[in-house]
């Protein structure tokens, strides 16, 4: 028996587990519960806040994370090795811990003198950026690693300068994977809870994002509303994960 056939059973168990949890959720709520969410001003405010902060987080992730991914892919120096390990930390340490560490920094007199980040939009966005940027770095690194530097060199022999040879070859070839990584970072920011709650405070209509809104709904005893909001998040996330998997799948070139 082939090993792939043997792996069908555990794979099926996992699929059934994931689908049953989600489907069970949909059976537990009604259409009216979903409709009610759009009339819930606090929820709508949380969605807008979540979208805004996650956008800022992803913007900075792309500005800093993509070049960092390039360095990690092309350099084998000490800086590259150290940062490769360091950028794993935000992924593996609990977001709540990240929040505590950031709160400690933001509460210091020096930072407070410059700007008060605690319980603000900026603080929440920085917390989400801290948790999400490693996804951009890692996916950019993987994307750049797949592109041989020889393309850039050939472009240079044909007359393209350093930047143009990079953008015309390596960047264009890695672009789709980089976008996939940014979408993952964005989804991670959008779903961030622990760090955003600690730094932002989860203040209604001010620093409350979708996961915090769901948490508050459930702790206040509105479980069905919380469940409906959770399922809505799942639908959005599912659509974007599908996009990252299939949107760029139909490539016309092989490396």
């Amino acid at each position: 028996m082939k090993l792939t056939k043997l792996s069908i059973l555990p794979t099926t168990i996992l699929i059934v587990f994931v689908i049953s949890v989600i489907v069970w959720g949909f059976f537990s709520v009604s259409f009216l519960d979903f409709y009610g969410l759009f009339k819930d001003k606090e929820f709508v405010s949380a969605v807008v806040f979540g979208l805004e902060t996650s956008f800022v987080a992803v913007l900075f992730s792309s500005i800093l994370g993509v070049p960092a991914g390039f360095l990690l892919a092309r350099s084998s120096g000490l800086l590259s090795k150290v940062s490769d390990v360091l950028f794993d930390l935000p992924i593996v340490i609990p977001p709540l811990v990240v929040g505590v560490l950031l709160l400690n920094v933001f509460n210091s007199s020096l930072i407070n003198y410059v700007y008060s980040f605690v319980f603000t939009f900026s603080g929440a966005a920085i917390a989400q950026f801290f948790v999400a940027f490693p996804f951009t770095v890692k996916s950019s690194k993987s994307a750049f690693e797949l592109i041989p530097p020889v393309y850039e060199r050939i472009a240079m022999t044909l007359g393209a300068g350093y930047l143009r040879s990079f953008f015309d070859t390596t960047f264009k070839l890695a672009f789709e994977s980089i976008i996939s990584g940014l979408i993952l970072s964005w989804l991670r920011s959008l779903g961030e809870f622990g760090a955003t709650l600690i730094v932002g405070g989860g203040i209604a209509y001010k620093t409350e994002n979708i996961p915090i809104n769901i948490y508050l709904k459930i702790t206040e005893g509105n479980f069905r509303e919380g469940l409906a909001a959770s399922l809505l998040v799942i639908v959005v996330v599912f659509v974007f994960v599908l996009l990252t998997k299939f949107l760029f799948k139909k490539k016309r070139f092989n490396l």
Partner: protein
Amino acid sequence: MIDVSLRKRFINFNIDASFSFKELRNVLFGVSGSGKSSILKMIAGFFEPDEGYIRVGDRVLFDKSKKINMPIFKRGVGYIPQEYTLFPHMTVGENILYGVKVRGLKVDGVKFDFLVEKAGLKGCLSSYPNELSGGQKQRASLVRSIVVSPDILLLDEPFTALDAPIRREMYELLTEIVDRLEVPTIYVSHDLEGVYEFSQEIAVIDNGVVLSCSDRESVFSNPVNPKVAKLLGYKNILKVESVAGDRVFVSGHTFKIEKPSFTPDFLFIRAEDVLLLRFDTNISDKENIVRGEIVNVYTGLSSVCLKIKSGSLELYLNVSKHVAKKMELKVGESVVVSLKKESIRAGRKG
């Protein structure tokens, strides 16, 4: 005129190479790992030599003492490596015209048409590289490099991965294009036959050092030492015991050679220059007769290589399959061979 003198220290390997080429079709020849590709990459500007200079015509691409190190995009080099390097997200046409576009040049229609026609790419200009064969990919890479009129074309074994018949076509195409457009070229290879057909001048490289650099015939017919002789396909490398005028003593045999200007340490003879004599041949007028016994027979695609032994002397000779069959040559048979003195090359130790 290409004038190169480079020194580069790597972790386990050093390059100390100097050579000059005056012709269009030039070859850096050596075994894998001899440093020839690294030299080519330094000429292209992919990495910097520790010392030395690189001059192409009247342009100085690199000169350590004068602190000149031209960036890759200003060197005017065309570079084609062994791997396929057409940009995979561009069509063949876009690939070919990439250099023209980035340099803001006008397309030379006559030249473009000539190159595309010669390379047989007319029908696939709108195809993507993954739709092409290996030969087409390398032809397109060649056209892409040539269309921008480089000052020098550098080829790092670009045809190695291709099948033998396609490789032959590629050499013909390259020769025609280089001669027609008069582009000085350095071709790096360890393919002996291809090198011989393509080259006008050759630099033989081993272990980062140029052992010999001259026109093709001089290099091939006068290997300077056993290492070069072996690289150039000489199968018989015989150690000289003593010399008396034009007579040389080797493993109990005396050979008459064309008197060299120096005292030779070795004799080099090609397997195809050892003549097998028929049983009924009158040997009295033949030079350098050796009687021996066949100790091994290696059958190739078109010829048979015999290893014969005469005392302590071992010689390799090539005969056609037809002759081998007709003369029923097999291990243990006695044979008589002759070595023409003009086909015996004298060489030094190092």
